[in-house]
């Protein structure tokens, strides 16, 4: 394996500090690993503008790669294209469900039209516990920037939903 390939493996084991069910690779925020010869560069794309985990993520990336003896390494931020939940891997979505968080549905083009009153079509969110589609939103915002609160009307369990953006 090349040094960059080994770094990708390492990054598959660094967990997101706020959703520790997911690795940074699952989350889709590692955009590139570039071997500059002496130095390794890891390119990250932030999830939300104000995500307080951004700095921690950067630190844990550097620490993990150094610990594996793949350094020296630096992390750079790439803002465009903006991160989308569509970049969360299938493996990541499965892990989220097992962790009790409903994974995001695909980002719908109608999300670009925020103001539409009267029977806005909401995508059905499946309960990660029992699979029922009979669920309701309790709160548009949740414990972290990326989630909303839901409740299953069938099994009555509350759960979090990873908002599609």
């Amino acid at each position: 394996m090349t040094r960059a390939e080994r770094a990708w493996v390492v990054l598959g084991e660094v967990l997101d500090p706020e959703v520790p069910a997911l690795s940074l690779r699952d989350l889709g925020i590692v955009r590139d690993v570039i071997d500059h010869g002496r130095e390794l560069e890891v390119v990250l794309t932030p999830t939300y503008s104000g995500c307080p985990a951004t700095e921690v993520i950067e630190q844990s990336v550097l620490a993990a790669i150094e610990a594996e003896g793949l350094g020296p390494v630096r992390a750079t931020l790439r803002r465009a294209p903006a991160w989308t939940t569509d970049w969360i891997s299938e493996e990541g979505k499965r892990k989220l469900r097992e962790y009790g968080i409903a994974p995001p549905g695909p980002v719908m083009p109608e999300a670009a039209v925020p103001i539409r009153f009267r029977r806005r079509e909401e995508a059905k969110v499946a309960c990660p516990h029992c699979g029922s589609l009979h669920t309701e939103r309790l709160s548009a915002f949740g414990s972290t920037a990326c989630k909303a609160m839901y409740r299953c009307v069938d099994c009555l369990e509350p759960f979090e939903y990873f908002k599609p953006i």
Partner: protein
Amino acid sequence: MQATSIHISQEPRVQYLLRIGDTALILAQRLSEWTGHAPVIEEDIALSNIALDLVGQARAVLTHAGTVEGAGHDEDQLAFLREERDYRNVTLVELPRSDFAVTVLRNTMMATFLRLLWERLGSSSDAELAAIAGKAIKEARYHQRHSADWMVRLGRGTAESKQRLARALDLLWPYAAELFASDAVDDAAAQAGLGPRWGDLKDDWLADMTAILGESALPVPPFVPFLSTGKHGVHSEHMGFILAEMQHLQRAYPGGVW
């Protein structure tokens, strides 16, 4: 590390960026006052999260403004070491948080405006600003939708909630005019392809606000001659108090970081 005030370039490009960054920053500061005080926990979380998104947007834009200015000012220096007259936020965002109706209406007015602004900035000739906008637009859409939902709930809720929202409208609506009062800074930005003249967003803003107010069973008030001047650094009497609180740590412990 210095605790003395810094002064900022009057270059129109820098000024245009400061208007965006400062507007997001001061609105975030006002919203964060609700943390622990909102009427229900869901809204406590919502207002705190919206504040967090705005702080993130402000950080990115202020960092970029510092880079464009080229005088070595970072985001913290820009946020915490300027004098009141050097802040370029619109006056609307510095008004006291007041009651929940005022907060909901201001969030709706500002999210509607910022959504339109970020949409246009997505095609800015400034690649960094366009990249920041690409992220921020997704957040602004969610903020607008959430705030507008609350407008309908308050406007069509109880006699008390409707009356409070109507009072908020009387209070805040006159401050909307400033958003759309374009000047030489706007002209320069439009000419350079940096971003739209803010005045060009007025029709779309009014269309959205008319739809939201209509659903909320409230009339669209007329615009009045009053024009606030926060964008030019001439702020209301409330601004000094915000800055005293915001700047206290950096002034007392220069260069302090978390």
